[in-house]
């Protein structure tokens, strides 16, 4: 997959997400009008906040949708990024590299994308980028397939809970992910999954006393 193709892919996803958010905002606005914006004596009614918030969501998401469809790229140089750029003046370029910096290698360049205290930091511009092959030789297309396989497996695992119980279906999920998606050997996958499920059982059922669903075949109650 080439860089322009990847960018186009992202733009399509952006358009879909902004389109959905626009629809969500409009839907919320319309439904909120039905709840009533104001009560007696002009007091705030149940519909006011969702209407205003929904309307603004539709407005901003609609704006972004239009910009994306016109081929404009949203600037990512405001807020914390401005302070970062100013604070890091004179410092080696791209002092912060990605999760996957090469050992001993120089920090690669690239702008940082970060959310304050919002979890792990994602720094663009290094590691197996969106267009690169990773250390296991997986192309972006392979990784995309893996992503959807794991997502579907999660849904299937949740659907299997009434049959296999929560721990049973999560054991199957873990084995599937390790052996099929990550292509590890069946024996290590079974052992690691068993140990993981046993640890989760010990903590949640043994220590916390959570009554986990056992399913039709009664695993892990």
């Amino acid at each position, binding site marked *: 997959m080439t860089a322009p193709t990847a960018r186009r892919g992202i733009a399509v996803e952006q358009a879909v997400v902004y389109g959905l958010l626009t629809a969500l905002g409009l839907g919320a606005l319309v439904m909120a009008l039905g709840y009533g914006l104001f009560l007696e004596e002009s007091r705030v009614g149940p519909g006011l906040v969702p209407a205003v918030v929904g309307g603004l969501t539709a407005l901003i998401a609609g704006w972004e949708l239009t910009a994306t469809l016109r081929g404009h790229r949203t600037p990512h140089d405001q807020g914390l990024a401005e302070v970062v750029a*100013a604070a890091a003046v004179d410092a080696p370029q791209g002092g912060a590299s990605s999760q*996957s910096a090469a050992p001993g290698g120089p920090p690669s360049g690239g702008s940082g994308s970060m959310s304050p205290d919002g979890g792990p930091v994602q720094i663009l511009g290094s590691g197996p980028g969106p267009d690169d092959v990773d250390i296991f030789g997986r192309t972006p297309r392979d990784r995309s397939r893996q992503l959807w396989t794991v997502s579907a497996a999660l849904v299937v695992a949740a659907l299997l809970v009434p049959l296999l119980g929560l721990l049973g279906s999560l054991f199957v999920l873990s084995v599937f992910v390790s052996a099929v998606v990550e292509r590890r050997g069946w024996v290590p996958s079974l052992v690691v999954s068993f140990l993981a499920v046993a640890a989760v059982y010990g903590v949640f059922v043994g220590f916390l006393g959570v009554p986990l669903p056992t399913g039709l075949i009664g695993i892990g109650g």
Partner: protein
Amino acid sequence: MLDNLVLGFSTALSFENLLWCFVGVLVGTVIGVLPGLGSTTGVAVLLPLTLSLEPVTGLIMLAGIYYGSQYGGTITSVLISTPGEASSVVTTLDGYQMARQGRAGAALSIAAIGSFVAAIISLALLVALAPPFAEFALDFGPPEMLAVMVLGLATIVSFAGDNRRLGLLMALVGLLIATVGVDPGSGTSRFTFGSIYLLSGIPFVEVMIGLFAVGEVLYQIRQGAAAPIRAGFRELMISRADLRRSGGPILRGSFLGFVFGILPGAGSTLASFMAYGIEKRVSKRGGEFGTGAIEGVAAPEAANNAAANANFVPTLTLGIPGGATTAVLLGAFMIYGIQPGPLLFDEQPDLVWGLLASFFIGNVILLFLNLPLAPVFAQLLRVPYGYMYPLILLTSLVGAYSITNGMYSVWVVLVFGVIGYFMKRLDLPMAPLVLGLVLGPLFEKALVQTSAIGDGNLLIVFTRPLALVVLAIAVLQLAAPSIMARLLRRRATTRSRRSDPADSTPEGSTRG
């Protein structure tokens, strides 16, 4: 105040609380080191584990995870220039350079010492300021609370991520999600579509687990595997000269961090960058910053730790979180049936003071744990992500189930996991969404009450001087990043004009 501290330490020093504080700090450090995990994820995923504990014990453990993971993030920032936490990003600038010069041990030691000193200073400030602040906040009516929430949202919209419009969009989405369920004012059910599950709203902790844990896992799968990282240490000891150089930066960083940390929504990332920028301004060795100056590690590390503690001022006294992790902690309070706010100091003194005292104890543990064990923690970097993520998924799903003992929670986690994946992929900031979600019900409640006080006239907010001042600060916040950046840049330009051009040659561009 002394009585309160004695009460706090007697609570925090009980065997059970000490044990869980140790567990929290240890697990937090591990979480901070492990790629793909941060403090918010750690607190969200492990929150269900604390449900069987006493609230104060659970909160002590969760807070331990919070500041433990900050230090874990520092280890990776220094050794491999890979910050596990946004607040450790700036540490990479000089910390990584120090590591390349064989001084990783000194960088990690000064980070641990700086964090410890900052924790003590910020704790003293917290102990001194939080009670009067809570007392002051008792006079806050709904209009003032409304203004404070607007300030919190404005700050996070302004500083979260790198595009204000997207920040605002995400805050609005958070507020919109928060409107699902029964309206606090009139009892009308909204957006429930006949579902009994939706009547009580979309559960907050499950949303966090979905966004931060499952969403992150999916994102990492899409990003692809990276080579396991090996890090080595050549020089473990910190010299007396290093300590002397770091004293001032640690003190300045601590106070600065505290000031930024108090601001609802600002958080420790901003504090660390400002501390770095300002230290570069005032330091005699400003020209060495970026090339492995120990001051460039000491100041931001002190600042982010002080800010992490100061984050608890708005969280405990106003019930308004200072950042995404404290937002999850606020969710923990609510699950335990505790409503943070000005009354908390009077109603639950053992909980508040026990928690504050545990910060001190936790930081002592962190110092003794990390000075000798940082190289051991660094070995965790070798664990391939492929082995970790099935375990993260397992813990997340079982943890979510255990919150309500129902599959509904698991489905919420999965749905928000997919949403979290797309947010990360499309660079949509999560912190505003989280804050919007947490503040949504409080915001609406304050709005309804303000409207009742003003007989339907919401403009009453503008007639209250305190609310007006807070709103003015909120408006200023929107321009704050540009102002701060300009101030930092102006000084850098002035200095570079004065200094020898050779001093500012970036060494980082050469392979070490």
